[in-house]
């Protein structure tokens, strides 16, 4: 179970140290399934969550979050181009490349959560799908700055953005990720070690050179 205590965000079931509010984590790997599983582990907590998911329906995302921690999915709002909109929790956007619309939806969702006086966890899965859908990467950066990193900073939230290195984003992916890494609080590299096991490597969370194994 993931609990946040003393103003920190904990990651239940993941052997990573708790982090303070206003922490943004860049998840990087070449296995989309592993990135998705790790994203859910980091985003499932007691706090409300808001997640832009580029590939799955809102209901599927909520189900998966509930599978990580009971109630986490019920307490999550999902923005997605897939499936049907349901209630206030799942919003469907026509095109993930329409960052004007996606940004306003994400901004409104996080503002509503913040206005209720709660801290939140916010996620983007997959950031590389967003990058691949825009013709000018500056739009992606403006979106990240305005609608993702700013609400996290302003409200002492936790943010997780997953990047799949196998996606063609129309730019040198290693160079792009090197740049993004310096703008996020931490980078965690995700490598699948077996069918149900991944390794997480990070130099930025807790002890330098930390490596942990996670069962999926």
């Amino acid at each position: 179970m993931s609990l946040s205590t003393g103003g920190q965000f904990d990651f239940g079931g993941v052997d990573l140290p708790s982090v303070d509010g206003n922490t943004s984590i860049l998840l990087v790997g070449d296995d989309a399934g592993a990135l998705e599983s790790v994203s859910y582990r980091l985003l499932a907590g007691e706090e409300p969550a808001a997640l832009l998911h580029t590939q799955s329906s809102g209901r599927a995302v909520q189900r998966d979050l509930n599978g990580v921690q009971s109630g986490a999915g019920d307490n999550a709002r999902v923005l997605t181009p897939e499936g049907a909109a349901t209630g206030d929790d799942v919003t469907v956007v026509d095109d993930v490349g329409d960052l004007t619309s996606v940004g306003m939806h994400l901004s409104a969702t996080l503002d509503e959560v913040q206005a209720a006086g709660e801290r939140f966890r916010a996620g983007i899965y997959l950031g590389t799908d967003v990058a691949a859908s825009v013709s000018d990467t500056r739009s992606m950066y403006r979106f990240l700055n305005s609608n993702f990193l700013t609400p996290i900073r302003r409200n002492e939230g936790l943010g997780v953005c997953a990047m799949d290195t196998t996606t063609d984003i129309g730019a040198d992916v290693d160079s792009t990720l090197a740049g993004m890494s310096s703008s996020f609080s931490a980078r965690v590299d995700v490598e699948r070690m077996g069918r149900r096991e991944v390794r997480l490597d990070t130099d930025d969370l807790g002890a330098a050179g930390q490596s942990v194994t996670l069962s999926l």
Partner: protein
Amino acid sequence: MVRSVLTVEQSDDVDALASAVDAEESLTATRCTSVQAAREALQDRSFDCVVTEYEFDDGSGLEVVEAIRETDPQTPCVLFTSVKPGEIDTASFEDLIVEYLNKDLPDVYDRLGYVVEDLIEHSTQVGFLKPDDEDERLEALREYDVEELPVEESFDRLTNLVATHFDVAVAFVGLIEEDRENFLACHGADWDSLTREETICTHSMLQEDVMVIEDISADRRFSDNSSLENLGIVSYAGANMTTSDGQVIGQLCLIDYEPREFSPAQREQLQQFAATAMEILELRQTVLDARATEVEG
């Protein structure tokens, strides 16, 4: 410093919006009640932030945002409206990014001033990424009194030497300020500065190694950048100028008007030249500081 905010709202509500902005000591609001009036205001002067309603008789608030993005793309914009995001027509505005505030939320008028101040203070809608320790980096940059340092001739000689060594059209030394990159010396072109959003160095500075773009038309970070296109830039290599405490304050860069590759050895050489540029800057600053101490003594 008082920051100017363009508030665009229907006539019945414009006073409430402007008053919410004016309530912050550091902000002063200019009122407009139509898209056309806002366009004219933007032509007359610059603003630090725009707060606009969505619905107007003569257009939409996104047209106001579009107008300021054309002239000043780094200016933060807030769409302040009761219209839900899903009801907003974005078909013609896919690359406009705004902060959305639902004006029906409780206390939103009380929060608006803080939000606007935060948007301006943190340059939250720029189209480039900043290092996580940007404040410390800018503080390190301020240690160098560039206006007073006699570095121009030294850097002119260095960029001349570098351009010849690598056989490139342009070589420059640039310092990366909060919003712009200012070129201290530029061999082969007459460039003074570019905005952070336009310059390739804003990406290069985030990387430890020399960054090479062999052909910017094949890279979406730069292929739609009309400023680079207008300057004729096709290929790029940039190395960090790093202070002794690890802050990247500038770049030594190579530009060519045709696609170029750079070998590992050439990249290492460029890094060495960048280190030399940094040493020149540090030594000049040390001499300036020593003279100031003598005068004070």
